């Protein structure tokens, strides 16, 4: 049961993990691969976070102190690109790998080898992306959205980034195939669709979004590649192409992508809140339908990213109304979370703190999204710091804080040890406070007209930028505490027991902590 040779001889049986580096390189075990995904995303989170620190250092004062504008543009572009494709998406897939089989009572993912491959593509893409900083001409600098014609003018880094994004896309698509097949085919007997935990539901819908839109991104960047290297003119206006067309294709991918990053976060929060309110999730069915409607609506709102490209009024109205429509299912979810809390026996352990902060701060991001949906307001605020504030409220205090909450919630299950609750709370309060110091002033900066992606600014923006930078440094430093807590918990701590949270009732808590290397070899019966 425990020696490496034994495992090598009978590795398909219920033995423990193989040891050494080959365990990780060749693993087909969903828990190992989930762990790899989570560590990879944590590394990328710190890398892209370091870029953000450099951005805030440059913006600490007006004038150019540290970086030339070209370098600054590389920092903002790569911060966005890596946070989205290297940090948030892989970490959510990490959660999916760890939790979906455990929550539906399956023994593993449906395609374990595909699973190995979809992870090990990521480091290749990550290396390519990071390497672009060291090639002639520097990294991508035209914004993570890769708009032509600027994108046509870059150096070799641009082709490397296209390759990296292709690899990341293939990895995501394979991950999505795996997740859909696992959920649809491998649920334990008795677990009907409407008995699935909401986290599983949100990932099922997210995986369908991935399958539908990642190929569209692949199209868009393939066109960029052939335009750059093979003489096509999809986006070259001079030769009959159209640069605005890229924006349409990109955002047809890009808006569902936004929900790919938030729906699993909804799922994590919908798991944590009932556990610590000690009540079943309020309105489970409406939650499922809300997620599905958000996913559907995400396909018909893309042009709200392009209100200033010269769209007919009819088009602007259509995309404004569909965008505002998204507030309805999102509102359903927020009210359901609040109703779940209502008259619950609430305790405030770290995961719950993150979940409640999520509801509150994500709602702020949602409201600023409603503001930006209004065409005349959007035309005023396009490409200002108001937009930066908006998407950090939905992506940091939305996705990233839900992910952190999820990590605290499931760390005892993953490692078998309790994390340090006191330090966890310190980390939460530092993060929540520093986040607001960093990003709340950006609303004011944007309303006052400060443009994004510019390394210098007018003097009247100096105070808010300094506040924002100080908050940013605190926010960055606080995440080192997160790293410390996670490592400390992985190395030891109080034994967690099977079910450290008395309100948690999903299937993973019936397993030991950490769960056996091969769990649910015999599927449980769900009543």
């Amino acid at each position, binding site marked *: 049961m425990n020696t490496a040779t034994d495992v090598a001889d009978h590795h398909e049986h219920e033995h423990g993990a193989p040891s050494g580096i080959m365990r990780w390189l060749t693993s087909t075990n969903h828990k190992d691969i989930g762990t790899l995904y989570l560590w990879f995303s944590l590394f990328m989170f710190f890398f892209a976070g370091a870029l953000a620190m450099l951005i805030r250092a440059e913006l600490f004062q007006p004038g150019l102190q540290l970086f030339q504008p070209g370098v600054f543009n590389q920092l903002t572009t790569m911060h966005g690109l890596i946070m989205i494709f290297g940090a948030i998406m892989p970490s959510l897939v990490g959660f999916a790998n760890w939790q979906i089989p455990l929550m539906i009572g399956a023994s593993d993912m449906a*395609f374990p080898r595909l699973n190995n491959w979809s992870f090990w593509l990521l480091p290749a893409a990550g290396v390519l992306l990071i390497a672009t900083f060291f090639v002639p001409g520097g990294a991508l600098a035209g914004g993570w959205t890769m708009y032509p014609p600027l994108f046509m003018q870059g150096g070799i880094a641009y082709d490397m980034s296209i390759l990296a994004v292709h690899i990341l896309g293939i990895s995501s698509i394979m991950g999505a195939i795996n997740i859909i097949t696992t959920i649809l085919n491998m649920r334990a007997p008795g677990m009907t669709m409407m008995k699935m935990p909401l986290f599983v539901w949100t990932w099922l819908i997210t995986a369908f979004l991935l399958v539908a839109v990642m190929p569209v991104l*692949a199209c868009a960047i393939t066109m960029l590649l052939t335009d750059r290297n093979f003489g096509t003119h999809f986006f070259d206006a*001079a030769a009959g192409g159209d640069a605005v067309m890229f924006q349409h*294709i990109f955002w047809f991918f890009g808006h569902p992508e936004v929900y790919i990053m938030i729906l699993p976060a909804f799922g994590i929060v919908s798991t944590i809140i009932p556990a610590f309110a000690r009540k079943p999730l309020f309105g489970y069915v409406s939650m499922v339908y809300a997620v599905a409607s958000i996913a559907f609506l995400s396909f018909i709102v893309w042009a709200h990213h392009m209100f200033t490209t010269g769209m007919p009024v009819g088009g602007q109205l259509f995309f404004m109304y569909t965008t505002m429509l998204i507030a309805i299912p999102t509102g359903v979810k927020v009210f359901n979370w609040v109703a779940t809390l209502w008259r619950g026996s609430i305790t405030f352990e770290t995961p719950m703190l993150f979940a409640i902060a999520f509801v509150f701060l994500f709602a702020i991001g949602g409201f600023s999204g409603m503001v930006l949906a209004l065409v005349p307001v959007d035309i005023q605020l396009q490409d200002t710091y108001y937009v930066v504030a908006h998407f950090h409220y939905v992506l940091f205090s939305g996705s990233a804080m839900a992910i952190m909450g999820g990590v605290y919630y499931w760390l005892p299950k993953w490692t078998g040890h309790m994390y340090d609750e006191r330090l966890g709370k310190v980390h939460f309060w530092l993060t929540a406070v520093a986040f607001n110091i960093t990003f709340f002033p950006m609303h004011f900066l944007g309303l006052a007209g400060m443009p994004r992606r510019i390394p210098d600014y007018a003097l009247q923006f100096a105070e808010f930028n300094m506040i924002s930078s100080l908050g940013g440094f605190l926010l960055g430093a606080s995440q080192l505490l997160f790293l410390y807590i996670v490592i400390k918990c992985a190395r030891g701590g109080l034994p967690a027991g099977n079910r450290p949270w008395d309100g948690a009732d999903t299937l993973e808590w019936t397993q030991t902590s950490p769960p056996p290397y091969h769990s649910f070899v015999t599927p449980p019966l769900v009543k």
Partner: protein
Amino acid sequence: MTAASVDNPAPVRSHRRLLVKLLAVIALSFAFGFALVPLYDALCLVTGLNGKTVGVAAIGVGGLSKPVAAPPSRIDRSRIVSVEFTGTVMPGLPWDMKPLTSRLDLHPGELHQAMFRVSNRSDQTIVGQAIPSVTPGLAAQHFEKLDCFCFAQQTLAPGETKDLPLTFIVKPEIDEDIRTITLAYAFFNTVDAKSTAKKLVTR
């Protein structure tokens, strides 16, 4: 955890069948991504969304001029629209180009002519093709070129300079909110971009 054995896990549904279906969805959405290109062109043709003037390219092949339509009977003297002209030469074409008329103030419905001067700086005979674009895009469908050097490819001998004419009408139906129209030409080398020229034929 009752007596089911390891070899007989959850009710087996076919992974393979689902995999094939999902791969089909992926292939479809990949195809859809590329289909967006002609779809977008069609949409722009109907709405004039992207500033391409209607029907120009279809007629422009083979040096045919567009048949001159009867000038509109009505000239809207109640308002003035400014038309600005710009010309650029794309990399790979050793020509110079500048509009001799940089700006015209006119009443919608009036027939006007603007001239562009192009000269070949190289010592070779080169064939070039001009591509127009109208801004704002919604004005494109009301910007009617009766005759244009962009309808055909232009050949310039070494060192030759030519003045090329454009005859146009801004139709009176143009939206009253549009007071300035910019017409931009980009000249590109037809040898360099054969594939592009072919593509233009279909547009």
